[in-house]
């Protein structure tokens, strides 16, 4: 998937360059909602990229939406861009009209269950809800008995216990007890908690691929600016080799995230169709994040350990996101079970995607 000639990416890049700069990211971490950034994104239709046009969304192609998320990952966008896209995706599958304003989704763990009664009243608590406190609405995958239901809930009707992830992004606990959904629809076949989490993993993989590109660029630039022993540190072979490895990790992550995005867009993201590619992506991208962020920090010395320097905007997100929607080993174990179930002679065909 190439991002170069993508109009949506161009538009987003311009907005992020102006409005998602380090000062805005720090302010957001201090609790200040990035009003200008969000309003501009919303006016441009980007926040509802994955929403069906007939339902009030922007009707953007799935792959373009992923390209947008990679760009957002590059810029450490301190707003629920990805989460609103996910919510819009979910609402579209349930054929529910989408509201404007920031959204998020629940639950974010495959084994979590939120109950809903026949008249639309919810019970249950969901932990680690990205940007929970900032969302106007939450798209919830709830259960009426066994039946999966998509419910649109006003955040104001829920109780929030604030928490943050490693990047200082809101990762709140949301209690739905007694909240009444403003709209509900039964979930289509294949849309369950596991499918939602898998889609979240595909999304985080793409954001992380963007983050890795960012720290590669920052590290290369820093190594040419910072001098020691009379020359730029980038002239030392040990530093060069670290950065070459970082470039490799970023490229591998990009390839893995692209493969997942394509599988999702081909197969709609529901059911098990894209599961292998998503599992492979979250596994490989998570590995790349670990190694890549370590190299980036080593290259930046003490400066990269300061709050002042912006390296941590991307690295802390990489560390947070690698654990969200299932970490590397969670997905690797799932992938390994899929491989084993098909048997040794099918291992290679599995790699080639047959």
């Amino acid at each position, binding site marked *: *998937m*190439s991002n*170069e000639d993508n109009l949506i990416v161009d538009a987003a*890049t311009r907005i992020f*360059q102006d409005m998602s700069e380090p000062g805005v990211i720090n302010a957001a971490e201090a609790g200040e909602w990035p009003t200008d950034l969000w309003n501009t994104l919303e006016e441009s239709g980007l926040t509802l990229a994955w929403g069906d046009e007939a339902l009030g969304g922007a009707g953007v192609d799935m792959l373009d939406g992923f390209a947008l998320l990679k760009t957002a990952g590059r810029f450490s966008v301190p707003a629920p861009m990805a989460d609103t896209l996910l919510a819009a995706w979910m609402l579209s599958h349930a054929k529910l009209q989408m509201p404007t304003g920031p959204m998020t989704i629940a639950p974010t763990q495959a084994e979590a269950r939120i109950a809903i009664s026949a008249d639309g009243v919810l019970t249950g608590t969901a932990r680690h809800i990205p940007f929970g406190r900032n969302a106007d609405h939450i798209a919830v995958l709830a259960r009426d008995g066994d039946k999966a239901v998509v419910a649109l809930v006003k955040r104001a009707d829920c109780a929030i216990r604030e928490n943050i992830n490693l990047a200082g992004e809101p990762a709140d606990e949301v209690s739905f007890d007694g909240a009444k959904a403003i709209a509900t629809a039964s979930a289509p076949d294949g849309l369950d908690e596991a499918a939602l989490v898998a889609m979240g993993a595909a999304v985080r993989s793409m954001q992380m691929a963007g983050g*890795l*590109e960012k720290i*590669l*660029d920052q590290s*290369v630039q820093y190594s*040419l600016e910072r001098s020691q022993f009379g020359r730029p540190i*980038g*002239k030392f*072979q040990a530093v*060069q*080799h670290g*950065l*070459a*490895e970082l*470039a*490799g*990790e*970023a*490229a*591998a*992550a*990009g*390839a*893995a995230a*692209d*493969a997942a995005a*394509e599988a999702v867009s081909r197969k709609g993201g529901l059911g098990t169709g894209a599961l292998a590619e998503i*599992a*492979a*992506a979250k*596994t*490989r991208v998570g*590995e790349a994040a670990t190694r890549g962020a370590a190299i980036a920090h080593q290259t930046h010395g003490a400066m990269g350990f300061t709050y002042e320097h912006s390296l941590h905007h991307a690295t802390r997100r990489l560390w947070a996101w690698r654990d969200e929607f299932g970490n*590397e*080993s969670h*997905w*690797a*174990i*799932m*992938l*390994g*079970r899929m*491989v*084993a*179930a098909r*048997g*040794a*002679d099918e*291992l*290679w*065909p*599995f*790699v*080639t*995607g047959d």
Partner: protein
Amino acid sequence: MSSNAFRFPDVEFTPELKALQQEVRDFLAAEKASGGFVPVADGWGFGVDLEFSRKLGQKGWLGMTWPKQYGGHERSSMERYVVTEELLAAGAPVSAHWVADRQSGPMILKNGTEEQKKTILPRIAAGECHFAIGMSEPGSGSDLASLRTTATKVDGGYKINGTKIWSSGAHFCHYMIATVRTGGTRDEKNRHEGLSQFLIDLSIPGIEIRSIKNMAGDEHFNETHFTDAFVPDDCLLGEEGDGWHQVTSELGLERSGPERFLSSAIVLTEAARKIGNEPDDREALMLGQSVARLKSLRRMSLGVSGLLQEGGSPTVEAALVKDIGTRYESTLLNDIRQVQPTEPLGQSTDDFARTMAEGLLRVPSSTIRGGTNEVLRGIVARQLGLR
């Protein structure tokens, strides 16, 4: 916005490619079943089977992309990719023809005389003519441009003197493409000048080939000594003095393929057979991590092939994939060992124990042959603007 990130084009796997893939899979399954070959670890490096190479030639799977007039089949780089990756994944013994098909043939096609193309390429495509690589010398490994072997102009040709080393398969190969000095000096400044490539018939007088047994016990690489070996003028490959440029593009071909991460695929397959359908968490973790790494490597590698198909020379991208790919292979066998203990036995009838033994003793070469990972990272670092 400019970024240092490497991008690999997305390659579409067409129904035609799928059909070819299936054809190769069926062929390999039948061959294996009938005892046509026994899967080996690192079969492209060490599995020599002259008969099997000939069979592939008959199938039309060698020289695939070359013009028909030279015995080729005018198929795409992607089709060639599909065939090679299937052979690798199956652990087929394809070492004999590998170099000729991958790099020597394409070098002749690009730089050779009409006579060379007509006489040599069809034999390579038939799986009957094999090539050795003459780059390294006792004093010149990573620092290839420091090489000392000379070709001195004499009446009607050149006299070659010097020693090439680590020449894989030279003992059964028919030709070597050797990079030698025809002028210039070994000075730091202009060492890249005065190098030339020669297409040398290894049966001529003045050449002595001495086997060097490797630590895995394979009779694989050699020392090739040249003492006043006379080659006629038309053995000069390409332009005199253009050798550095030529050998660089030869290395591009040498580094660009999926063999750089599929040498041990067969060991992973045999490990999966041992593990069975219901793995415990550690076994599943190993399988999942390995497959995830393989999938992303393959995607990048397909991208390299796509760049080749577009007529590009993806030297840096190939170096990047080789670096990650060979490091993946270096850890793979150890990862497998941790969850599927075995005492690797070289003569075992158990395919897992045997291929593991082959793999463990051969894999240390993967981060060295074709350019060390340190050299590859230097290439990537240069692209990043650091050198």
